[in-house]
């Protein structure tokens, strides 16, 4: 009878998560050496800490291998089809905030809205013989958003890092990426479309709908829920 809580295994996201639980009387800590991914939970019984990469937490939740998990709301929506049928968002945690947005070069003075982007995509395809490329690693979120808004004649190209540089490098014409302050975008001569906000993300505590909640696990969760006040 234990429930597993998955938490990002390093960096600011881990520290902030530890702080968030600590402020509510549940003390999470890494055990062993700094490099070891094992942890402990004090302040509530029956909860086991699992340290994982933030990007793997959605999959582990969906598979029911962990009962609870902390990760970005963007990652859950991107990595899980039908995410809300597979996990439940229990509590937004108020940190790790970032917006998934669509951005284009500043000197595209004719483009401010999705409507403009769509019109430009049509003209671009005619002029260049291929679809306007949008670099991103958030394929599902971006595609669903553009489809819902009736944007056509674009293609997504995968970019796992330094996405803001793809336009200058001529591997894409626009980007869809996470930004918190917009500083990197500005430094790379890019501007955000005024209606180009795809998702406002933040670190969120999720609960798996498919994990084993029998045999007392539900009671452990109820207790934890009370302690955390979520």
């Amino acid at each position: 009878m234990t429930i597993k809580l998955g938490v990002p295994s390093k960096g600011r996201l881990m520290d902030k998560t530890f702080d968030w639980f600590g402020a509510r009387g549940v003390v999470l800590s890494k055990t062993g050496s700094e490099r070891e991914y094992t942890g402990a939970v004090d302040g509530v019984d029956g909860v086991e800490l699992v340290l994982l990469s933030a990007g793997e937490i959605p999959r582990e939740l969906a598979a029911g291998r962990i009962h609870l998990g902390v990760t970005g709301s963007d990652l859950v929506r991107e990595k899980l089809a039908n995410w809300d049928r597979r996990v439940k968002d229990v509590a937004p945690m108020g940190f790790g905030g970032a917006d998934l947005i669509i951005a284009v070069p500043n000197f595209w003075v004719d483009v401010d809205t999705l409507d403009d982007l769509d019109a430009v995509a049509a003209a671009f395809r005619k002029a260049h013989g291929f679809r306007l490329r949008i670099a991103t690693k958030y394929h599902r979120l971006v595609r669903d958003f553009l489809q819902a808004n009736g944007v056509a004649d674009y293609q997504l190209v995968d970019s796992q890092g330094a996405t803001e540089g793809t336009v200058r490098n001529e591997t894409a014409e626009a980007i869809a990426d996470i930004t918190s302050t917009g500083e990197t975008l500005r430094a790379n001569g890019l501007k955000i479309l005024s209606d180009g906000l795809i998702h406002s993300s933040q670190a969120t505590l999720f609960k798996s709908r498919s994990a084993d909640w029998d045999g007392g696990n539900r009671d452990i969760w109820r207790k934890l829920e009370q302690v955390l006040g979520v």
Partner: protein
Amino acid sequence: MTISAAGRAEAARIAAQFAAAGALPVETAILQPADTLLDLYGEDIRARAYVTADPLAGEMMLRPDFTVPVVQMHMESQAEPARYTYSGEVFRKQESDERRPHEFLQVGYEVFDGKAPAQADAEVFAVIAKALDGLPLRAATGDFGILMAAVGGLATSEARKAALMRHLWRPRRFRALLERFGGKVAPPASRAALLSADEPFKGAGAEFGLRSRDEVEQRIEALRKDAALPPISGEEISLLDMILSLRETAQNVLANLRDIAVDMPAIVSAVDRLEERLDALAARGVDVTTLEFEGSYGRTSMEYYDGFVFGFYAEQRPDLPPVATGGRYDALTRVLGQGRAVPAVGAVIRPEVIVSLGEGAA
């Protein structure tokens, strides 16, 4: 989910009927080059088709439908008139409904014949109807030709018509464009600011990337021209709305369209074609007095159909996908034939849906 023996038997029965109707049985590869499909259908196809990679051939897709490879095969052989039938698995990702199968059978009937399009339309519909005879199905029909003629006949610029035409299959954006072109919605403030600026590029930073400053200037020029145009008239928009909201038996629709055509002469020849098609259907024993016609039929799902469209639905089983769908796709052959178009019309039946229909009744 494994394809059942009953599904295979049903597929064989239908394929034999199609062959008896004069179609040549053909095969296509399951692995298709991804670039052709991506170029045709755009990013949406990635959400629907399985993509895999070959070390030499590059990105490949598990055949999401037969239409594209059959058209390509036909364009190479150049035989005309030609009738083909095929039967086999297609593969579709299911992102929202887990109960829908990822692989299922399609049996198709395709006609490439430019001489008598109305006859070819009627032939495909009648052949499908015959294969489905006796099943509790509702047939729905529509006609993109009429919509396209109506848009093409609007008293406005070619650029506006092209923008509307491009979004016929995306009703939301089509509506948004129509409202803006009709002057019902003001352009965004950023647009007005751009068009009134003396130096639109002031403070915009350096040019970089593949889209050049020239292209930006051309668009500004196009926007200026557009802003100077009078709005599309309320009368024209309401005629277009009348066409889109038609939902009646085909014969009543025909009478309505004749009335609309008095004020919108651009659709006359498209309406003539509808009449010709209805006559051809009647001649093949289809009861056109009860056949349904919807002005908006197929607008959300059938990009590249550009004329007659139809589907057969199990009304008692809304959980099932359509049993058959089809239509005319001349534009698709133009794209795949690099300018050389072959008038084409075809349809597919999903034999396993017929089997589950029988199981539901038992």
